[in-house]
């Protein structure tokens, strides 16, 4: 079963169009949604949560069409963290607990208290006096404290220092140890996605440029470095993207489609994304 199934999703804002987005998040997996700022990641997440209207397409979340009346109940099973925490600024963590236990049916006060203690968040301090890291930790604590089956995280780790990010990524990894748990994680920090994701979806200029299993991507693609003249010996169909200067050339290629005489280097997810963005073409 898929935790999220998106098919032919389209949303037009006039000057920006998110078009023909189709991908799935298999149950028990983490899918990383990557793309530059303004590529359409947050719009996709809003469409998944049905907080904005769509022009076309269908979305199923945990097996339920997100436009149906049953979706409101499904939200009990979804933990959401947005790019900001958006809690009323005068509320403390203790107050947030009082609100959330009356919001989510399976709210677990002990779990929440555990996260508050683990994240070293002051219980009585107003939210407005929290640092950005503390605010995001509170949002993550809320998302994890109502026994969710799916986490939808929109830039949840952006703006956090590497140590906090690492701690939070570990938490997400722990969450998916339960095979019934899944995560959709949107970020433009590709290294975070490479660290924990099973699948990668790359949205570029409102289009889905790539959706693939991460390990397969890293196995299938490679980087070659050579002179511009040598680059012409590589079949055009094998080249995903290239950077050519007067004296050197670098290309992202399909490993299986080029001769073994070429020396290939292991590529990172960031290489793949950057080459794809540079070439502005689908694969």
């Amino acid at each position, binding site marked *: 079963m898929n935790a999220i199934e998106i098919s032919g999703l389209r949303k037009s804002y006039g000057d920006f169009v998110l078009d023909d987005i189709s991908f799935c998040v298999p149950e028990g997996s983490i899918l990383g949604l990557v793309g530059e700022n303004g590529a359409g990641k947050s719009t996709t997440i809003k469409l998944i*949560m049905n907080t904005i209207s769509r022009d076309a397409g269908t979305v199923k979340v945990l097996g339920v069409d997100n436009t149906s009346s049953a979706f409101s109940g499904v939200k009990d099973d*979804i933990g*959401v963290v947005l790019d900001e925490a958006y*809690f*009323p600024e005068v509320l403390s963590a203790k107050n947030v607990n009082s609100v959330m236990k009356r*919001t989510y049916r399976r709210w677990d006060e002990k779990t929440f208290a555990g996260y508050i203690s683990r994240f070293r968040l002051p219980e009585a301090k107003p939210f407005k006096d929290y640092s950005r890291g503390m605010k995001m930790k509170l949002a993550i604590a809320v998302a994890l404290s109502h026994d969710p089956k799916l986490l939808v995280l929109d830039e949840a780790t952006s703006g956090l220092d590497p140590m906090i990010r690492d701690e939070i990524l570990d938490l997400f990894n722990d969450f998916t140890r339960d095979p019934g748990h899944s995560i959709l994680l949107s970020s433009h920090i590709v290294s975070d996605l490479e660290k924990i994701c099973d699948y990668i979806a790359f949205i570029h200029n409102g289009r889905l440029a790539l959706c693939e299993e991460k390990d397969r991507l890293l196995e299938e693609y490679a980087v070659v470095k050579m002179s511009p003249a040598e680059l012409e010996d590589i079949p055009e169909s094998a080249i995903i993207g290239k950077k050519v200067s007067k004296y050197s050339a670098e290309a992202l290629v399909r490993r299986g489609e080029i001769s073994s005489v070429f020396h290939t280097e292991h590529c990172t997810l960031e290489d793949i994304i950057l080459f794809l963005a540079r070439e502005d073409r689908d694969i």
Partner: protein
Amino acid sequence: MTGLLVKDCLTLVKQMKIFLVIIIVFSIVPGYNMSAFAIVYSALLPMTALAYDERSKWDMLASMMPYRPRDMVLSKYLLGICAVLAAVILSCVAQTVINAVRHTAAEPGFIAGSAVMFCAGLITLSLLLPFMFRFGVEKGRIALFVIVGLAAVAAVFLSGKSEDAASFYASESISLSAVAGVIGAAAAVILIVSVLISVRIYSRKEF
């Protein structure tokens, strides 16, 4: 929806302590004029809660939670109704206590006047909230100024006329409870229509 009400109450109590004290003081000061102000202020509390929601972009987060548009809207109406009701009850209790201490009888039409003020609070609330949901608190303030001005004038007018009205009702043998019932029914209809309009407006919002 109780989560939304708890959130609003916690926010208002923390941010609006002086405002709440003013409502309580105005409620217990003898005379309808002060009570009317307290009731109008109470009817404005949902707008204040909406302003804080807008500032923290709470609606964006709440739209991801298991709340339906009607929960978001009804919570604000319930907050307003409870606040107006509390101000009216406080006012009635205070008047009763003052009368008992002074060994004086209650003013003629006291109950009817209180019921009318409660209805006026509901109508103020019902007229304001759709504008606030449609235009936001910042732009919705124009509607606020117009409606609060009219409500204040109406409240002063009604309080000035209460004794005359009471004697008119007595002379014409018109049942006070029937008059209160008619006004209450009108307020209920306006409230229901207002809620339906607000839910429709809120359902079309995108976050």
